[in-house]
């Protein structure tokens, strides 16, 4: 196929109109994201195809493997259109029944529908499920709808129309102006205004410039970028084309985590399809403008999410940050002007250019416009990806969409922004998601990881966990980060092991101040955040560990005695049945006893005991 034109885009859209509206056939949209693959969606797909063949429905039913649906905890997921019927946790053996009952007899299979944990009733229609009903998909608008491996599907949803407008109708300044009006701020963490970043790079004169996409999603608990790449790779490519036009770059790289093989595979395919259609390469849309994109695989280093480190890594060196200025907009990759934006940022760009910046800015708060994708995980009922307007409260995300805390446990804190972020307690749950408001309560928006923790989480242990992460991922270039975080980790380990001393908290705070003020890059400067935010809200837990040698959440093994509280034990035997090394002695109607000689302190009995009887 030669050069793409707007008329051709329109023709493809018209041709696929019925399929996009689900009016010509029955469509079975099976989630093919990493999560669902892991829970067996590929085998479910085979079983589904077999069942359809047996029922001789091949001609009137289409099975489409979509990217990540977003409701990851419920996989494998199947959505049936028309009707928008949502099936969850499917098994190979269920598929014949789904085909026979739903498709042949017209009766959805009740037992496989979503069950609301609060109302305890089944909700058949996807858009009625609270998890989906409260969302506003923009960056995720195509997830679970299109086949990410078919470029025509993307085009049928107005794909590449933003690029067409940018290349044929707008000049670089118009594009940048539109981005400024949209109020879009970088979705990778720091929230720098995207339009301004592009304006700087545009103003830097150079023979060569680069557009980089940061797909090195390193924050633990954040998986929106992976999901966007798996579900809608063309949106990212289109966003990069528009950015390239704005700054006059002709070469782009996507720096992708090697831990995301499926995302890389789909991106690679998308780049080949777009090139074949003439949407990448030379003279796109006959505009005279050319741009090509290459994928660069990282090799596992968290610090490479930092922009200058990422550029070093593409240059084939150790991924270590360097001081700024010069900023990458002036001297970036190979010393040339470069812009680096995150996956979610790029995924929003085509719609901003197509619908206008004012449309994008129509939702959100004063300083944070548009929507934000969050990855909710941890101790929460509905785990998955959600996209909500800026300004939505954390409480709404966790309770209305997330469905609250499972096992009737109490909420303790929510961790935002990955290792550089912080923990927000119950008292601040009404904080709206907004870059400034979240910073005020001691966390950061970050890339959008929302990890919910229940009362069984030890906050000292969490601080230790994050510090372990930061210490190990410190590149070692600057002393405050390399030595300071190590020292903080040592102190936290000491406290968790029951060897904490008075004065440890003061030392932690003093070290935090020094590191914050003197570290070279963002990773180091925000490194002490997990310590500071847990100290701010959960100081009493630190004090209990240090002064009373007690872990209130019962997670720190060294502070537990592995004995049974004879008052609380109900003689149920759950611990006896769960113990992997037969260290629990128990007979019917008798109290349990733990043999400390045999016990390996694996904590299984703590998790199984519903009566808090082991201490």
């Amino acid at each position, binding site marked *: 196929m030669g050069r793409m034109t707007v008329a051709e885009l329109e023709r493809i859209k018209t041709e696929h109109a019925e399929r996009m509206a689900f009016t010509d056939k029955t469509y079975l949209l099976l989630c093919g994201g*990493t*999560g669902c*693959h*892991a*829970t067996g969606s590929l085998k479910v797909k085979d079983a589904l195809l077999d069942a359809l063949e047996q029922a001789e429905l091949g001609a009137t039913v289409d099975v489409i493997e979509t990217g990540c649906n977003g*409701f*990851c*905890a419920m*996989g494998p997921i199947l959505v049936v259109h028309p009707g928008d019927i949502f099936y969850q946790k499917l098994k190979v053996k269920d598929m014949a029944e789904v085909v026979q009952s739903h498709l042949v007899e017209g009766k959805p299979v009740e037992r496989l529908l979503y069950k609301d944990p609060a109302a305890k009733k089944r909700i058949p229609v996807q858009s009625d499920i609270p998890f989906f009903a409260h969302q506003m998909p923009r960056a995720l608008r195509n997830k679970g709808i299109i086949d990410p491996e078919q470029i025509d599907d993307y085009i049928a949803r107005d794909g590449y129309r933003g690029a067409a407008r940018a290349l044929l109708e707008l000049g670089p300044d118009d594009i940048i102006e539109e981005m400024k009006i949209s109020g879009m701020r970088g979705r990778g963490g720091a929230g720098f205004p995207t339009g301004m970043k592009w304006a700087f790079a545009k103003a830097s004169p150079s023979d060569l410039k680069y557009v980089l996409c940061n797909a090195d*999603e*390193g*924050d*633990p*608990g*954040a*998986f929106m970028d*992976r*999901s966007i790449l798996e579900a809608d790779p063309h949106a990212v490519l289109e966003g990069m084309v528009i950015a390239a036009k704005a700054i006059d770059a002709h070469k782009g790289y996507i720096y992708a985590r*090697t*831990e*995301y093989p499926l995302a890389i595979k789909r991106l690679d395919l998308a780049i080949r399809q777009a090139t074949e259609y003439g949407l990448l390469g030379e003279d796109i849309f006959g505009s005279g403008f050319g741009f090509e994109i290459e994928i660069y*695989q*990282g*090799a*596992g*280093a*968290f610090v490479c999410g930092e922009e200058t480190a990422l550029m070093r*890594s*593409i*240059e*084939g*060196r*150790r*991924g270590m940050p360097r001081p700024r200025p010069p900023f990458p907009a002036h001297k970036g990759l*190979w010393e040339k002007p470069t812009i680096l934006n995150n996956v979610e940022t790029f995924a929003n760009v085509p719609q901003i250019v197509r619908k206008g910046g004012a449309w994008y800015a129509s939702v959100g708060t004063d300083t944070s416009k548009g929507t934000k994708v969050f*990855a909710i*995980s*941890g*101790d929460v009922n509905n*785990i*998955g990806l959600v996209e909500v307007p800026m300004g939505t409260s954390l409480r709404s995300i966790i309770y209305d969409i997330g469905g609250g805390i499972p096992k009737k446990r109490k909420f303790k804190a929510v*961790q935002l922004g*990955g290792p550089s972020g912080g923990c927000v307690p119950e008292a601040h749950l009404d904080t709206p998601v907004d870059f400034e408001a979240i910073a005020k309560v001691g966390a950061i928006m970050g890339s959008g*990881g929302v*990890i919910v*923790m229940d009362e069984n*989480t030890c906050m000292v242990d*969490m601080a230790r*966990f*994050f510090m372990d*992460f930061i210490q190990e991922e410190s*590149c070692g270039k600057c002393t405050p980060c390399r030595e300071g975080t190590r020292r903080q980790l040592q102190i936290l380990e000491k406290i968790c092991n029951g060897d904490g001393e008075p004065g440890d908290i003061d030392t932690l705070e003093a070290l935090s101040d020094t590191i914050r003020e003197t570290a070279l890059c963002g990773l180091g400067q925000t490194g002490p955040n997990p310590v500071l935010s847990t100290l701010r809200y959960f100081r009493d837990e630190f004090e209990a560990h240090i002064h009373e040698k007690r872990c209130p959440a019962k997670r720190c093994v060294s502070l537990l005695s592995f004995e049974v509280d004879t008052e609380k034990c109900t003689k149920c035997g759950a611990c006896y049945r*769960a113990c*992997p090394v037969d260290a629990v002695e128990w007979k019917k109607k008798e109290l349990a006893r733990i043999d400390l000689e045999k016990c*390996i*302190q*694996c*904590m*299984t009995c703590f*998790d199984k005991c519903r009566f808090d009887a082991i201490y």
Partner: protein
Amino acid sequence: MSAVAQPHHPDITPEMWPRIDAVINAHKQVAGAVITVLRECQNVVGYLPVELLDYISRGLNLPSSDVYGVASFYSLFSMVPKGRHTIRLCLGTACYVKGIKEVMTRIENQYQVPEGGTSEDRRFSLEAVRCLGACGLAPVMVVGEDTYGDVTSDKVIDLLDPYE
């Protein structure tokens, strides 16, 4: 064919050398390709012995300190041999909150394999990895190419026993 003499190494078999040379030759002229070359060579051999790093540095015409520096910086690269099966435990926050630490302890005890190490019989290597982005399945374990979700310390041994 590379002009550099191939070193002898017990873990690099004769049929691996042409594949290694192909990787090096394909990237010789590409600036910044060393990470890609190391990844592809590790895919061939299973890990990166020091002799191979030297060979790569000569092939790419780079100082061996540069190549070693890159290989030691990124966690993907290993300079020690791996077991027949690599167990990767996700130590992302969601998995941690849901109890991956207990799973780790259980595996270490059962197979006598320390975190970051390999069991003596080379059956398992045990690695703690950064968030795999499958937080919906937390806690997550990956064995070779197989991903397991909702792994608990009492279930994990049943999952691992079939890997001989």
